[in-house]
Structure formats: C-alpha cells, structure tokens
C-alpha cells in the first residue's frame, strides 16, 4: 500500500489501532469498530498546525502553533498549544522557558484589543474606533509636518526633512512590515527613525 500519511492522520490511525487491538484481545469482536468510532481523538489530531518562529530572541526557534478552527469564513481560530519545530535545524524541537510560555503572551490579559485614546490631562484611556483614531493621528502628523518641514537648509540645499516627529520601529515585526515602515517614514521625510538595535 502506497499511502502518504500526514502527521495528523498517523496520530489518528495509531490511536484507533491501539484501542482496537486491545478490544480485540478481550474478545469484543464486532464491537471493535463501533468503539473505535466513539473514542475521542486527541485534540491535537484535529488541530491545524502552523509553522512559525518564536518572537523573543534571535535564535528564532522554529515553532509549531496548534489551533482549532479550520479557517473557513465566519470561524475564529484559537491557538491552544505550542511546540518547538523538530524539523528546524537550529532548535531541533527545543524551546526555552521563554518560548515555552509563549501561549500566555498570545493570550495575555494585557493584549490591546481595541484602539484606545487618552485625552490631554485625562486619567484613563477610552475606547475609540479605528477610523477616529487614524484620522486624528493623520491630522496631528500633517499639522506638525506642515508647520516644521524643512525644504532647504540655510545653504539652499534641498533637504526635505521633518525633524519634529519621531518613529521607533519594532524588532519583532516582520521584514516585510519593516520595509513598508521604512518606505512610509522616509517617504514622509522623517529623520528621527530608530529601532531596538542600538538599545
């Protein structure tokens, strides 16, 4: 038999096989098949496996994220288990105490879930819509740029810089987000641009 088994199928099959043969040994005969169908498969066997990379240090360990939900429309996937990726040649399936706890970062109570706004002098944040927040930020940035943009320096050299707003880029965002960020901040003329690299 030439059959390609996925990791998931293999787990399911071996699970059923073990249950089935044990029942067979006890002489349950025909009940075997019905029983096999009633055995609750491992939750992992139903999970979607996604290859990702640990977000913490620069060993960048390969990770397998296990989630429930098949990603069809109107369903919401939920990650419930994380393992080191045994195929990754660097970490070979291992994770350290930081990476092993990453599920609690994904589901942390302090995840920001909605755009929040704190007005001048206020003692708390209040929830706002994305549209309101982004419109306000764009307006504040444009006002500052219009007021402080330097087209030419005192020697008349075109310098096109905006020296009064700054941008600190993340270091756990993807390269792709990084390039789009560079394009945006330099496109606007920002010179106060940094990331975590020298801190």
């Amino acid at each position, binding site marked *: 038999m030439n059959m390609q088994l996925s990791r998931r199928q293999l787990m399911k099959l071996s699970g059923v096989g073990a249950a089935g043969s044990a029942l067979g040994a006890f002489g349950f005969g025909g009940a075997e098949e019905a029983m096999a169908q009633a055995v609750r498969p491992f939750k992992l066997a139903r999970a979607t496996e*996604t290859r*990702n990379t640990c*977000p913490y*240090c*620069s*060993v*960048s360990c390969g990770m397998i*994220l296990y989630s429930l939900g098949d990603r069809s429309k109107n369903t919401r996937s939920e*990650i419930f288990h994380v393992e080191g990726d045994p*195929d990754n040649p*660097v970490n070979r399936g291992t994770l350290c105490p*930081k990476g092993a*706890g990453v599920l*609690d970062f994904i589901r*942390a*109570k302090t*995840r*920001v*879930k*909605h*755009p*929040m706004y704190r007005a*001048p002098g*206020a003692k708390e944040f209040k929830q706002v819509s994305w549209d309101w*927040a*982004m419109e306000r*930020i*764009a307006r504040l940035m*444009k006002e*500052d740029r*219009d007021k402080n943009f330097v087209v030419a*320096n005192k*020697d008349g050299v*075109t310098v*096109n*810089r905006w020296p*009064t*707003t*700054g*941008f*600190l*880029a*993340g270091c756990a*965002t*993807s*390269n*792709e*987000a990084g*390039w789009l*960020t560079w*394009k*945006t901040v*330099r496109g*606007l003329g920002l*010179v106060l641009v*940094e990331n*975590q*690299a*020298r*801190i």
Partner: protein
Amino acid sequence: MTNSWTDIKNADLVLIMGGNAAEAHPCGFKWVAEAKAHKGAKLLVVDPRFTRSAAVSDLYCPIRAGTDTAYLLGIINYLLSTGKYHADYVKHFTNAAYIVKDEFAFNAEEGLYSGYNAEKRSYDRASWDYEMGEDGFAVRDMTLEHPRSVFQLLKQHVARYTPEMVERICGSPKEKFLKVCEHVASTGNGEKSMTIMYALGWTQHSYGSQTIRTAAMLQLMLGNMGVPGGGVNALRGHSNVQGLTDIGLLSQSTPGYLGMPRDAEPTLSAHLGNRNFRPLQANQISYWQNYGKFYVSLLKAMYGKAATAENEFGYAWLPKVDLSYDALHQFDLMHQGKINGYVCQGFNPLLSVPNKGKMRAALSKLKFLVSIDPLETETARFWENHGEFNDIDSAKVQTEVFMLPATCFAEDEGSFTNSSRTLNWRWKAADGPGEARTDTVIIADLFLRIRDLYAKEGGAAPEPIMSVDWTYIKPSDPSPDELLREMNGKALVDLKDPADPTKILRRAGEQVDGFAQLRDDGSTMCACWIYSGAYTEAGNLTARRDASDPSGLGVHPKWGFTWPANRRILYNRASADPSGKPWSVKKQYIHWNGSRWVGPDVPDFVPTSAPEKSAGPFIMNPEGVSRLFARKLMAEGPFPEHYEPFESPVTNVLHPKTPTNPAARVFKGDMEVFGGVKDFPYVATTYRLVEHFHYWTKHAKLNAIIQPEFFVEISPELAKEKGVKNGGWVRVFSNRGSVKAKAVVTKRIPVLTVDGKKVHTVGMPIHFGFVGETKKSFGVNTLTPFVGDANTQTPEYKAFLVDIEPLSSGPAIS
C-alpha cells in the same frame, strides 16, 4: 554573526564573553553543548558574574564589568610576545604589512591619538591612514619589519597590556588570565578554531564597538575568520532585530546598509562620489564599487516610475540628515521640548532607554504619542500614576496618547531574520484579539490617510509624499509576499547580458536572481540589495524547509535563505591559503579546484577568480584584506584602547588624565548627574534571566509565575558589610534615581581586587516594570546613565555606580 548557530558545533574552543548564552539564548547554546560533547571542545567564560554559561564551562575567569577591551588587548599582547599567532594569515589576509602615515601618533601618557579636539570631544582623523605610493596604491612591507607597519605599531601599542596590567585593570587573577591565553593561542595554527560569542555585555558600554573590534582583531591574529567553528558571533537580541537592522530602520541607514543622504551630499552624484571604493591594491574586488547599482535600485523601489535619470531617481525627495538622530539624541531633543509627535511600534522606551526620570519628563513634553503594540506598554501608560513606581500627576500631562492594537507574531505572516542572517518565513495561525490589525495594515492606513490629506488640501512639500510608489494590488493591505518580492528586486526592462548582448538575462517584470544583476541606470528595482536572491522566479526561498546538510558541517544550504547570496559563513575564502589550498584538512571549507572555488557553502569570492590574480579574501574592503588598523572608521582611534566606564570605581591606571572615552558624546545635564565612587562605591551591572525576555514576558502568566519579581544580587561579603539579609529588602540608588528590591545574597557575584582595592558588584536583572503579570517594579533604567558608545550610541547599561542599603520593608503596593 559571521558564522551561524549550527556552525558552533565545529568549534574546538568557545569563548563566551560579554554574553551569557546559556541563559539568554538557550536553544542556540545547545550548539556549544554539541561541540563539547562530540568534538571535545572546551568552553571558556569570562564574566563579572558566575553565570549559567560559566557553570558548564571548562574554565571561568572573573573580570570587572567594563574592562573587556583591556583583557582582549592583553590576549593579543600574549600572542605577539610569544609568537603564537597564525603568521601566514596575518601577513597575507590582514593589513599588518601596510605602512601608516608618519603623522599618525598615539600618546600613551595622555591616552589620545593624533588629531584630538578637546572642545569638540572628537578627532580630526586625517592622519589615521596608510602611506600612499606613486602607483596610487597603499605602501606595504611584506617582511612586517618596517617600524611604521601596522604590525609593528600594534605590537608596540599592546605591549602595555601585560598579564600584570590586565590583573590590575580587570581584577582577573593573573594565573587564570594566562590559562585563558594558552587555550586561545592553541587555535592560532589553522588546525583548530575558536568561536567568540558575545551579546549586550560588549555592546552596552561607552566604548563597546572597540571591544568588539578587539575581538575581531584577536580572531584575525589567530586565523579564525572565515573558517568553520570560528568567527565573531553577535548573539542578537529580538527575533527580528537583525532583519530590522538589515532593512535600515536606523537614523543614518537605508535598507542594505547604504547611507542616508546628508546635507553635504546635495546630489546623487555627490553622494556616490563620496563612495568610490577605489581598490588600494592591484586586482582587488572592492565589492562596494557596486554601491551605485544598489542605491539606484532602492530609489526605483521607493519612487517607481517617478524616479528617472533626469531627477536623479528621486534622490532629492529622500530626507537628508544633518546630524546623528540616534535614540539617545532623539530623547534628549524630546527632553528639550523640540519634538512634538512620537510613534512607538513595538517599542517600550520608558523602560529601555536610560534614565527613566528623564524619559518620563521627555514623554510628558510631547503633543502626541502613538503606541502600535500587541501589549499595553509602560510607555503607553507613562502618564498614569502607579504610586512610587511611576509617580506622576496625570492632570498635568497634556500629551494625547493613542494605543493601537497590533497583531502578534502568531497572527500575521512574513519573514524573520535570525542571528545567523537566515530569513525564515512564518505563517499565520490565528486572527488577533478584538480589533487588532497587522502592522502592515496600520502603516498603510497611516500613509494613505496622510497622502489623501495632502492630495485634498496641499500643504508643506507634498511632492516627496505623492511620489512614493504604492502600486500594491490592495493599497490598504500590501501583502507580505509582494513586499518580499520588492525587497528581492526585479528587472524593469529586458536585461541584456553585458558579456553577450544577444542574450537576455532577465525579461522585463521578472524577479532578479540576485544582486549581481542590479543596474544603476534605472532598469532594475530592489528595495534591499542584501536580500536579493530571497524571492526569485524560483519562488520564496525564505520558505524553504529542506534541512539536509550534505557536508555535515551545519551548513543546511536549503533551509530558508541567508544573506548575502545564501552564504552561511562570511569571508569563507579565507579558509584556504593564498594559493587556494585549505589551511588544514580538518578545517577545509572553500578551496580552489583548479578552475573554481568550491565547497559546501557559497564562496565569499568571485567563483572563477584564480589565486594567481592575488585578489584578497575580504572582498568588501578596498585593500582586499582585513584591518588590524581601522583607518578613519572608528570615532576614538584606529587601534582599541582601554577607557573606563563614565562611572568607575577606579582611575584609569594607563592614563589618569583621559580616564573615559574622549570621543563619547555627553549631553548637557547628563555629565552633571554622573556619580562618583565616593558617594556610589559599587559597580552595578544589568542582565537577563532565562525565564524572561526584556519587558515582554512579564505579561505572560507562566513566566511571571516562575520569576515573579525584581531582585538584586550581591556577594555574601557585601551583604555582611551592609547588614543585608538574603531575601530582605534593599534600596539601590545612583545619582539619577532609586529602586527598591529583594536581595539575593550569592557567591555567584565574585569580589574582585582591582589595583589593590576591593571592588564589589551589584547585579540587576532588567525585566520588571509596572504593567503586566509580574509584581510592580521601578525599572532598572531608573538608575542607568544617559551616555552611549561613541560610534553606535548604544547606552552604557553594563557598568555604572550605585550604593545599597537595607530596608525594613518593601514599596507600598497600590
């Protein structure tokens, strides 16, 4: 890293110094364990603390925090005075033979090089260069005997760093230091190799770059660059700090380490003219001669069709930088009230930039602050009163603050670049919580809204913004796939083969195979030349998952994509001698087979350039060789020199008149709050714990359970002297602030004798703040000084002065 995580298994000797890989990079440290178990490799650890790495070492040598340069110069002196270095490698592959200008001098009494300007705290570096010959090439003496040769000048420079002097400065016992030297010297023969692993313990000093240079010089003296199991390996911090650095999100940088335009370079031709990279010897490759091709291809990626030869491909639209806008300078400007708006994308400066008091005052002066982050950071809540942990009157803070929910790593896709320079693609596993959006969607939204405002209303200089190329399939959501393709680059017209114009190398619209196909006439675009080759017509190479390793040397050439050109060990042509033969069969990697350079890795060389042509192995340098003498490239001198941290318990015994880095920049107000040894007698150092990652895992319950609260570590001797009990409360204070902590009394903190004086160390993990699952804390940056390395402006977090006193109870918990 010049080498890779998996290459560490090829080392015969591992030196961990300025880092603690067992604790901070545990799954990478596994390759040290592999080398020890399977190759019989030895591990040396030099550190102010008996760390987890030290605990499994073969030899541990204590050192006073901040004196690593002196220690390494001491090893180089040992090699030179005993003759135990790789003589052929030094002669042929370094600039040891180059003759230095007569005007260059070092005054050992003063601790200063020629050209110093005390008022400006900087050097005129004109004399720090080679003697040039009439043929237009630099003058050399291949016997290395010329008194002005780099070799002789170096020998003379390091002669002061005797084992006795190392003990006096570093507090490292002479016998242990000499044992370290013997181990290190055993790799200077081509038969064995040593790898050096370092991290923030070397970078976070006011002279960190020079310490790392000294390590590179040491490895060059030993012939350990470009060979398996060798190299100088920076263990980077965040999972993608390598990538974000490669992409140039730093004030002076562009993608691929090209320079931002400067005021002194009004035109593209002026910018390129400053960077001609003319070879300094005959037949040298000097690969940076291609700079213009990379630059024009970047401008084409930035401005698309609007970039034409007539407008110098839009060069004038890019902002020009007039001075260094590094993070320390930015926050100093903010503190002066000169910054109005600030955006933090996954960054928590209130805790990560030194002098929290200054930071809080600086943020309070902003008109608006935007935090784009998966988590609530202390920075986003800087205006909120958290008792003594963040004592602020919210009503007085007029800053508008936005906290925007970003997805986390598990909730978007794209590539990360690890410390080995390998790009690995990641896939999305779930949607983010609530209304969280990906970083790309948030940034695109911001850009498009501002561009629309300019389109509708006009305003200051709309042209640079309107010219940015944004031809993504879905402009509000550029896909990671499109963005990586843009970084790889493509042909904009049919590219003819320069060797045979009847042949087409790439059709218009096709992805280029690599940076060798880029042009400076606008016929190619490429956002990040060093990432060129990552996404070709063959597909997304960062997503490759073939872990095979035919050579068994940990190369894994088909796993992901490693920049540049999928090369896993940099400078690997140097693994063979000038004639192309491996230095030793044991360390064979890349060699000349009579017609080509071959081996398990991509050669770091022109693959068909025969050894007889005498092109040097360090192809990025115009010399073709590596540099023991740095010419004009470092702020404080072409050779490293020992300077004390700005806060030090002792004077500089070599030159008391110049105790600290004479070229380090110190802002007004910061010099005044440096503390002296009279009031603050103990050396403080900061570090990381295996259970935590920076200020991030304190939000994760599991990590908060296993390491729940801030503590400081001191020796039993200091504890006795100060009446501190193990587990009792203490107050630790510097001239900038004060924190309260539980005391851990441990023999892991050695007491050192430095120049006859007893020196105590106070150790502090950094990970705690006032938001998240761990117990509320002050942040160690309450104490740290606001000064950085003279070249990189990386703050001095690893050595400063404090005092400590016992307390009867802890802070009031609100």
